């Protein structure tokens, strides 16, 4: 003889897993999308890197500027003539580089010591050309400086007078910390995977059960209401964790597909990180499943419950943004807020930090309280929900 909660658990799990269509949608949206976005970002970054390596500059009217050509060639740049309709191509996103336009009087102005204007043409809606504009600006600044130094030297002024202050960068972030910047999206995707995994099962076992009129007969069984609720909750948590685990594991092969080598070197997501993520996500899955059930049990239909659950979805997707806009840095209270705590901790795992019990305890406790309160509410509301 098995415990009634186990009977409910098995039934709800089988029922949820038979909902193939919903499961497929959840799998696609939360398991496949993460690695897919990772690949897209990598191909974008890879493209930019490739173009930077090629060192090609598109110029119109280079024949008017032998001095500039000389400088650019010394910087090992290949100069290519811009296509005639480059403005249209830039607008239509067909051209991926900004275009430098040299005026006909360039060389004459230069010789006369006048200020010459060259145009850098790009479209701010064209992301690829935008990315290349930094390199062109740096080139022009270099050319400017060289010309200035030469002109001053002719007049007997030391070049150092031009530059009383020199700025040097020293980056303190190691490879792991740099990888974490890219990795911020991985915690976000697995967090949403937990939520999407729990959502349908949580709504189906509560509001869905009310809508199809099976909650009333269910309560006419001599089973303690807590057993019913625990069984249902267990099934929801299992489905949520199943999706979360698949989502975490999907990033393992996902990163082999990263095209950019420097990106692949920076993005470190191995089995260690995946297991840390799963441990961190488990209490959150427990709490969120219970919370979604508590929200849905008050609703008469699946549709109404979906509308109400939007608040939770919004909160969970917005909370991680706190770490993006954190002006005061990481705060102690972040670890007490479910979803925010998990994002923060997963971020630290990606940075290569190891987490101690002191880091995990606040989020575990917060999830425990939230989960227990929600389950208590569901148990209390179940009977009233059945007859309304």
């Amino acid at each position, binding site marked *: 003889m*098995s415990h*009634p909660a186990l009977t409910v658990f098995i039934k709800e799990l089988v029922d949820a897993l038979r909902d193939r269509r919903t499961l497929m949608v959840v799998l696609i949206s939360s398991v496949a999308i993460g690695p897919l976005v990772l690949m897209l970002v990598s191909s974008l970054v890879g493209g930019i890197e490739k173009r930077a390596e090629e060192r090609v500059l598109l110029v119109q009217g280079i024949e008017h500027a032998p001095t500039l050509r000389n400088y650019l060639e010394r910087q090992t740049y290949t100069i290519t003539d811009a296509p005639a309709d480059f403005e249209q191509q830039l607008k239509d996103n067909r051209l991926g580089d900004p275009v430098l336009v040299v005026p006909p009087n360039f060389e004459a102005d230069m010789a006369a010591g006048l200020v010459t204007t060259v145009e850098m043409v790009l479209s701010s809606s064209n992301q690829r050309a935008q990315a290349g504009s930094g390199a062109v600006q740096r080139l022009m600044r270099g050319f400017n400086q060289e010309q200035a130094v030469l002109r001053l030297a002719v007049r007997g002024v030391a070049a150092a007078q031009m530059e009383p202050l020199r700025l040097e960068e020293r980056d303190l972030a190691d490879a792991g910390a740099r990888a974490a910047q890219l990795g911020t999206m991985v915690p976000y995707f697995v967090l949403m995977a937990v939520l999407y995994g729990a959502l349908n099962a949580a709504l189906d076992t509560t509001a869905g059960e009310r809508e199809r009129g099976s909650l009333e007969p269910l309560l006419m069984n001599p089973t303690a209401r807590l057993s019913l609720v625990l069984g249902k909750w267990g099934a929801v948590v299992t489905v949520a964790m199943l999706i979360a685990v698949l989502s975490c594991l999907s990033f393992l092969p996902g990163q082999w597909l990263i095209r950019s080598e420097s990106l692949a070197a920076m993005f470190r997501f191995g089995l260690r990180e995946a297991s840390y993520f799963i441990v961190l996500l488990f209490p959150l899955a427990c709490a969120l499943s219970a919370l979604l059930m508590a929200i849905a049990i008050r609703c008469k239909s699946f549709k109404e419950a979906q509308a109400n659950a939007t608040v939770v979805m919004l909160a969970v997707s917005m909370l991680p943004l706190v770490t993006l806009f954190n002006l005061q840095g990481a705060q102690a209270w972040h670890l007490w807020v479910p979803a925010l705590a998990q994002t923060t901790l997963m971020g630290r795992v990606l940075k290569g930090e190891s987490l101690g019990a002191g880091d995990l305890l606040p989020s575990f406790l917060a999830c425990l309280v939230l989960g227990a309160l929600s389950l208590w509410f569901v148990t209390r509301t179940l009977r009233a929900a059945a007859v309304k």
Partner: protein
Amino acid sequence: MIEITGLHKTFNHGRGRNKRVVQAVRGVEFVARDGCITGLLGSNGAGKTTTLRIAAGLITPEQGRVVVDGIDVATYPQQALSRMGVLSDARGLYPRMTARENIVYYGRLHGLSRTAADDRVKDLAYTLDMQPLLDRRTEGFSQGERMKTALARALVHDPPNIVLDEPTNGLDVMATRSLRNALRRLRDEQRKCIIFSTHIMQEVERLCDHVVVVAQGRTVAQGSVAELNARAQQSDFEETFVKLAFKPDDRQPGDRP
């Protein structure tokens, strides 16, 4: 045996200005004996479903009590429920599960072992003539097929007391007849106590040994069909019901006296 005494229940609908207090049940009482089909007859909104929900422990009454085989439902709901099979107004099935799985699930919740539940499914499928349905998913079942599955589910633990809330709703003639035969068999062969709520006179005339007429939340009369006809001095049971359940001013003009 199910004994119901002096039930009272009010519901509050709406909030604030729109708040309305509805007295659903105010003095329903009757006794349903073993080996007897007791009909709960009343028009729509008379309080039948509320009475049966109180009997199943889903609603707590403000006054009165329901005793099932000597067990008070309000005090020991689980013990009372294990002696009752209730087919309620809501009879939703799980669409992604087969009829057999739906029935076995309830059997397991009643504490039956897997094999005992499977055996009961076989028996019930024979009694309710639903063998071909057992291994189909209930998605796409007809009204009658759903009804049979829900009834089998309510009876899976072989309860001595059976409570059915308008079980013939939506059933065609043949399904209704087969349900009536099944209920008679349960009464005669197994001496079950059966409560059957309905608003259809024919049902009551053909099936019930004892009739409880409920109107505006009260028991207004009870007895066998013949006794009630005699009391109302009518030969037609429908006329008897109208005379017993409604005040003279509420009856439709043009009705026979």
